[in-house]
């Protein structure tokens, strides 16, 4: 099977380890991974801040960059949700503004082929035991877009439960937002920081050595908050846990 990796701009620029982990993981599972160079950002930050029109070229770019692929896999719950929930809206609004069906058609092509990583593993590949080894206590934060928009449900947890050596610790108030919210983190910095502090406190209370999630942007906020508090808990993307093995351990 051949898939395109949509790495996302945040991972590309700030967390390349996440993208590398996805490549290693999928290749280990026998999937051929390609990285179309024409890809860019899904447009989520612009769209969610109110700049829908600035997002339109990125919808077209996404469609063109992944035109040759049946599956697009992305290690980001919120970017997958952006494509699935908002690309059709962007297309419909452009059509309603009298600018034709082209964007709606691009969205229509993008939506069915785009999978968040854990969806792709569980639903398409049909695996929950990916042969990973991660001998640490970990707590899992279900990010809002993964939890409520994509409806990832138990998928990440089922994958984590099969990781050898991993001890999964329950996160109190797991379903509560960490307070990142894209530009919310700076536009409403005080509330965002208060939410982040409560999340960090909950994470620390589990005694886990790492907190994992399906989204690097939430992890940047959570990790940044933990670091500023002097906490030793590490933010780790779920892809890095699933990619780690005894032969090639997490470093």
């Amino acid at each position: 099977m051949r898939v395109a990796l949509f790495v996302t701009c945040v991972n590309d620029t700030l967390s390349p380890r996440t993208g590398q982990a996805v490549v290693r993981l999928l290749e280990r599972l026998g999937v051929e991974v390609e990285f179309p160079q024409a890809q860019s950002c899904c447009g989520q930050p612009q769209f969610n801040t109110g700049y829908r029109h600035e997002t339109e070229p990125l919808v077209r770019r996404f469609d063109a960059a992944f035109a040759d692929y049946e599956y697009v896999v992305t290690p980001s719950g919120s970017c997958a949700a952006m494509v699935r929930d908002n690309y059709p809206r962007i297309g419909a609004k452009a059509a309603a503004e009298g600018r034709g069906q082209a964007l709606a058609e691009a969205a229509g092509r993008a939506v069915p082929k785009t999978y968040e990583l854990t969806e792709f593993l569980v639903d398409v590949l049909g695996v929950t035991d990916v042969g990973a080894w991660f001998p640490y206590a970990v707590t899992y934060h279900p990010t809002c877009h993964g939890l409520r928009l994509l409806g990832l449900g138990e998928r990440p947890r089922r994958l984590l439960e099969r990781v050898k050596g991993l001890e999964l610790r329950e996160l109190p108030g797991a379903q509560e937002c960490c307070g990142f919210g894209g530009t919310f983190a700076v536009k409403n910095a005080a509330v965002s920081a208060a939410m982040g502090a409560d999340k960090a406190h909950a994470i620390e209370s589990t005694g886990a050595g790492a907190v994992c999630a399906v989204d690097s942007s939430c992890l940047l906020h959570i990790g940044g908050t933990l670091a500023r508090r002097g906490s030793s808990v590490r933010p780790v993307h779920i892809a890095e846990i699933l990619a780690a093995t005894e032969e090639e351990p997490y470093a």
Partner: protein
Amino acid sequence: MSGTSGTYLGMPAFPAAARDAVRNETLRGNLRHATHTIRDKRAKAVAELDDWARLRAAGRDVKERTLRHLDHYLVQLEESVTAAGGTVHWAADAGEANRIVTGLVKRTGRSEVVKVKSMATQEIGLNEALEAEGIRAYETDLAELIVQLGDDRPSHILVPAIHRNRGEIRDIFRAEMGSWGRAAPAGLSDDPAELAEAARVHLREKFLRAEVGISGANFMVAETGTLVVVESEGNGRMCLTLPETLISVVGIEKVVPTWRDLEVFLQTLPRSSTAERMNPYTSMWTGTTDSDGPRAFHLVLLDNGRTDTLADEVGRQALRCIRCSACLNVCPVYERAGGHAYGSVYPGPIGAILSPQLRGIASEVDASLPYASSLCGACYDVCPVAIDIPEVLVHLRERVVEGGEVTRNGERVTIKPAKGHRGERAVMRAARWALDHPGALRAGQRLASRTRRIHPKRLPGPGRAWSDTRALPEVPAESFRHWWQRTRGGAR
């Protein structure tokens, strides 16, 4: 004129008000305790019903269909109410509604009214309008009474005094009850039962003396002309039955077509709001009835921005709201910012999408409300009429930054973007260009990687909003793109 109540004029923008609230430890504690308790109870009450998803979809559909034919159902309602002995008044805005109600009270020759808790009358600032004409309005809902006695503003739809704890309530009762009527008993403690008893005794003399009652309504049935008030305390029942004259001020979106439609909402509303299977008091009345209840009944149908909101295809879903307050209780932003920061009688997620539509985005606070959310989606999940609040928030953000066509007072007008977004707009345009030119993006990444050793740990200016409480991410030595090219070379 807009529906802005005088109380809220000059409110600071949401982030500034929220910053102060976040620092207030007592407030944070009160809100956290209250919202988490009711949040958990609601989840249990809803989980009891295996057809919840269908009830929610039915509630959404009934409201959608009604809104689509609102003109029809309102005319039908007017006919039914009139046929049942009531009088219907139409108020285009807050000013008109206040003039109508004030005129009606004056005609009775009375200078006191008792009030059932009502969002619509708060929205129009009725108490202040009555006071200006020498008429005193007594709030009879316990939490509303606490707000009124404390000369405070409501901070929650259902529990307006949610920001107060028991000790604060005792102090307010002791200090203020005397000047409004019967004083609090000596030695009043902060025991909830004692506080409730003090309120009961204080209010009873008001009920018995009152000749005019003022209410809102949760629902109005077009088919029969029946109004419905759903409550927990029984004060509403007193206000609706004891006075000679009853005046109800109700938003036009509260109409439902048939009696049978109540079947859905009388299940979803109590479970969503108080987590009760059924609320203790449901009062229904149809016009007037000889020798039973009020002799005169007036219904004031309030528009105040609702028809304009209805004209917006995405935003109109806000009019489905049945004011259950589940979205407030589950909202992590509301929990920390408190209700007052929203600068309106409608706080929380629903307020963030309703106020900028009913009042427009001309004021600083209204333009900031669509951003008062991390878009976590918890509100949409719990909403019993499935209002996609995050979708509307993003839609309104676009209105704030881009301006565009809106309906105001029935006219299509083009509004300018709100102030203060020029810099952001420039950044977004630049980002659009860079992100659509991966070559430029690559160059930028390379530059960032080369200079990573000299990146600061804290940012100056607006960047402080991030770096004051969060460490900055370290820019890696190599972007993913570069790693791929280096290791996979020619492959795509």
